[in-house]
């Protein structure tokens, strides 16, 4: 079954043939993050793909993955171009290194998951929260519920983690 939904006034859809994305977002809708694990080389991959980027085998199984990591890079958008986001500036787009599989299969690789900085309830973060986050900030995964079978994985500050001093772009 295909999915058509609305998120912040923006039309989102997944085609019925797109099994990889349907499965990925179904687990997100259950707030239970899963990634594909290659049955040949046992490496996880992100985002969903139709074969393993390291051994090209197609066979994979969906396994639960802990949604914790640290911010590898970010951008703080002050001038939104999509109408859906204009009401939420400044908003952060984060590139997060998952703790799981970091540095594998080579030192420069990691499962780098994209998401916004949100509240624990999955709402785009207010300015005071945006201003606390930079490279190095420890974050945990939360979800923005969109529709049955579709939630977006997001990131919020991991309040239980020991936080390094984040690196932030100096100019406000």
């Amino acid at each position, binding site marked *: 079954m295909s999915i058509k939904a609305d998120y912040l006034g923006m039309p989102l859809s997944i085609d019925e043939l797109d099994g990889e994305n349907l499965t990925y977002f179904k687990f997100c809708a259950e707030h239970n993050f899963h990634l594909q694990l290659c049955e040949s080389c046992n490496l996880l991959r992100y985002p969903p793909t139709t074969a393993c980027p390291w051994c090209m085998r197609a066979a994979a199984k969906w396994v639960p993955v802990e949604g914790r990591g640290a911010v590898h890079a*970010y951008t703080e958008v002050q001038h939104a171009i*999509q109408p859906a986001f204009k009401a939420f500036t400044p908003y952060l787009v984060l590139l997060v290194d998952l703790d799981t599989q970091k540095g594998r299969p080579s030192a420069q690789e990691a499962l*780098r998951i994209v998401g916004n900085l949100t509240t624990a309830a999955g709402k785009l973060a207010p300015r005071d929260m945006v201003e606390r986050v930079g490279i190095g900030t420890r974050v945990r995964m939360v979800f923005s519920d969109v529709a049955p079978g579709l939630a977006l994985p997001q990131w919020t500050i991991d309040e239980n983690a020991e936080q390094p001093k984040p690196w932030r772009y100096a100019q406000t």
Partner: protein
Amino acid sequence: MPLPTEMDTSSPKHLRDKYAIIGVGETSYTRGSGMTTRALGSWAVRNAIEDAGLRPADVDGMLSYQSGDSTFAPFIAGDLGIRLNFYMDVFGGGSSTEALIGMAMGVIEAGMCKTVVLFRAMNGFSQVRIGGTGARSAVPVSGDMLHSRAYGWQSAGQLFSFTFLRHMYDFGTTPAQVAAVRATHSAHASNNPKAYYKERVSVEDVLASRIICKPLHLLDCCVETDNATAIIVTSAARARDGRHPRALIRGVAGRVCKPRIDMHYQHGPISTVAGKYAREILWPNAGVAPEDVDVTGSYDAFTFTTMLQLEDYGFCKKGEGGQYVSDGTIRLGGRRPNNTSGGHLCEGYTHGMNMVIENVRQLRHDTDDSCPRGADGRRQHSYDYREGGCRQVKDCEVTANLGWAMPGTGSAMVMRRD
């Protein structure tokens, strides 16, 4: 400058110097062309054919690139009375120019046609805004795009900023260093009568402009314009009869990618761009090294893209790009000027082709600045680079173009004067 011959190089390439660019043309650079991309395209291609001193019947191949925002080759060929033996319209934006020049060499080498014109026609301001507002942001978000656009991560600036910011984090690159790219290119544009933005701006002006998405200020971003550009490629032998000195193609690298190009940030260091891989093809193919290059055309969709590519192609050490673009090297009058037309930041946005056109003119020693023409019809260059003056680089012999699609994909080309 004496160039290495086949014997001097470890990687002999039999196509080196065998093909040439013999014609270049463009429309004016405007915001609000008031015409279709078809009309823009036929205007630019006609100018290139006339620049080369050819007739339409001399051209039998056509290539174009676009992103669902332009006309197709058959319409341009039809308008200009060109009967084609080969054409192809390719999907893509930045990095396409150099890659398509390589494809033109390949199809001529294969005997499929003799002379190829490539064009890019776009209303990048008045129809499909290249910055992503309007038509592009109205497209529904589906499938694989749910991992990007659903997060308000869509425009080129938003998508590339992880690389830009991480370079600052990894190497201490400062906003003022990269802002020097805009200041420099604006100084070049002030000597280019056809540039859209001809006013000189300072590093302080860039830093005082509003933030779009960190670390990009408004003036770190290129201009959106309506225009078309065209280039004609043929064999060096056929090019002997041309109107201008030939711009001989030394070597090309086309759409070279980092690993995991579906989501290249999976593979670090993310502050490294595709030039790291492309340089291993470009320099051996061309038989020259960065120190042999007189003028660069490093794609300036953003100030950062110029800096990152110059660094990863080896014009300076890794991590020293900020220093390289801010120490005067890339200015007219400096050791190796970059984007002497003003580039995408100032002249106009064409997805890379105007930077190749500029370097062809540099190699002809005939940049279209305000210097007076002599009896032979060519400009008598003063090499006085003050505002409103000359922009010809003295004794320009070798140029390099570094095209950018995104941090993970790039193309490049080296040309030399005949």
